[in-house]
């Protein structure tokens, strides 16, 4: 299957053309965030304050990297379980978040929001952290440095490998892929 190259930020049209199972190489900027950062971002929204970055068209990567060795840009940086962000994701999607990268299934609420507001969920290979780190070319903390690996980082990536897992048609590779290969 040919790989599709995309550059962030993403727009509605690009996202609408993606289908589950497609392999994508992402380029441009990604923002990181895990549970703690998401909680803080939602608190900001509740207080009517701006988020640490403009969310329209952006992609959030659910990751908490290991510490960088001297000379390294970032430590090993594979995806974490996305389900822990399900409670926060629909609100960010409604504000224009166009993509999320993580591992594991999303809740029905997230799947619905992806469809309604045109977004996409990409699966990265859980545990392929050393490989993924090689596609990260720049990295800087832009919010919550006190959270250490859970801070919000701005990453510049080149050919970051992901697979489309939930698309704007409501497709879910976690459901459909398993159905194809189940033999009992």
């Amino acid at each position, binding site marked *: 299957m040919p790989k599709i190259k995309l550059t962030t930020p993403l727009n509605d049209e690009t996202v609408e053309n993606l289908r589950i199972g497609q392999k994508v190489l992402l380029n441009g900027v990604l923002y990181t965030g895990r549970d703690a950062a998401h909680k803080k971002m939602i608190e900001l929204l509740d207080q009517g304050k701006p988020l640490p970055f403009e969310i329209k068209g952006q992609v959030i990567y659910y990751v908490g990297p290991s510490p960088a060795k001297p000379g390294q840009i970032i430590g090993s940086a594979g995806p974490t379980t996305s389900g822990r962000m399900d409670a926060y994701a629909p609100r960010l999607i409604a504000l224009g978040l166009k993509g999320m990268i993580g591992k594991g299934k999303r809740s029905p609420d997230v799947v619905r929001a992806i469809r309604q507001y045109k977004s996409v969920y990409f699966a990265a290979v859980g*545990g392929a952290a050393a490989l993924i780190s090689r596609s990260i070319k720049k990295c800087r903390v832009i919010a919550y440095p006190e959270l250490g690996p859970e801070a919000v980082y701005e990453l510049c990536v080149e050919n970051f490998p992901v697979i489309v897992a939930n698309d704007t048609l409501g497709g879910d590779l976690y459901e459909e892929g398993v159905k194809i290969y189940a033999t009992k």
Partner: protein
Amino acid sequence: MARLCIEANYYLGSDVIRAFERSREEESSLTGRDILKQLLLNAKIAADDRVPMCQDTGFAVVFLDLGQGVRIEGGSLYDAVNEGVRKGYTEGFLRKSIVGHPLKRINTGDNTPAVIHTRVVPGDSLKITVAPKGGGSENMSAIRMLKPAEGLDGVKKFVLETVKTAGPNPCPPIVVGVGIGGTFEKCALLAKEALIRELGRPSPLPEIAALEKDLLDEINSLGIGPQGLGGRTTALAVHIEIYPCHIASLPVAVNINCHAARHKEAVL
């Protein structure tokens, strides 16, 4: 100790690498094959660059097989183990993933304390096994006290149900450690011990080896596949350890390990 923590996280065992290679050939899903290829490449990069194969460098689970002829001098053995973990996780640039209190949840900053299991064995040596355990797969593990009448079928059903519920979360392909028998806590420990066996080496008990093979086939018919995105390779191996149990009980524990099936040992 520190070296074992670091090496376990940088260098994936050759038994796991061989299992990836074999699975890649047998996998019918293209996406699945691609994922297995990425995992092989990942293991190579981690070893070449001396970096952790996964960012979750785990809880340091340590087995000490202490020869009964050994005398420990000059301080506490457990303090020494924790000092080694501290040193390994700091000097090896491993992620610190331990909170000091399960409810207050403040990171201890050095990945201590370790979880230490001590077994006293004959002899004059100390064998140390370090098995860093990731959160994603540990969270999908389960234990159940079956009724003896549920028997073999009950055991199989529970293992399959646990793997199915886990789905993509423990980063398949997984290794499934099963404990059958003992008491509640013994059973959980058996499941953990099953995970540090060399990958794919069958149980020495023929009926248990047959059950391992059976369960592996059934798990690999569930369709979950690499990363839960569909395919044949859901598990690389099923390892079962058993122990006698009470006439009224049939405990079964399933401890799931991700493909980052890390363990390193040394004998002092």
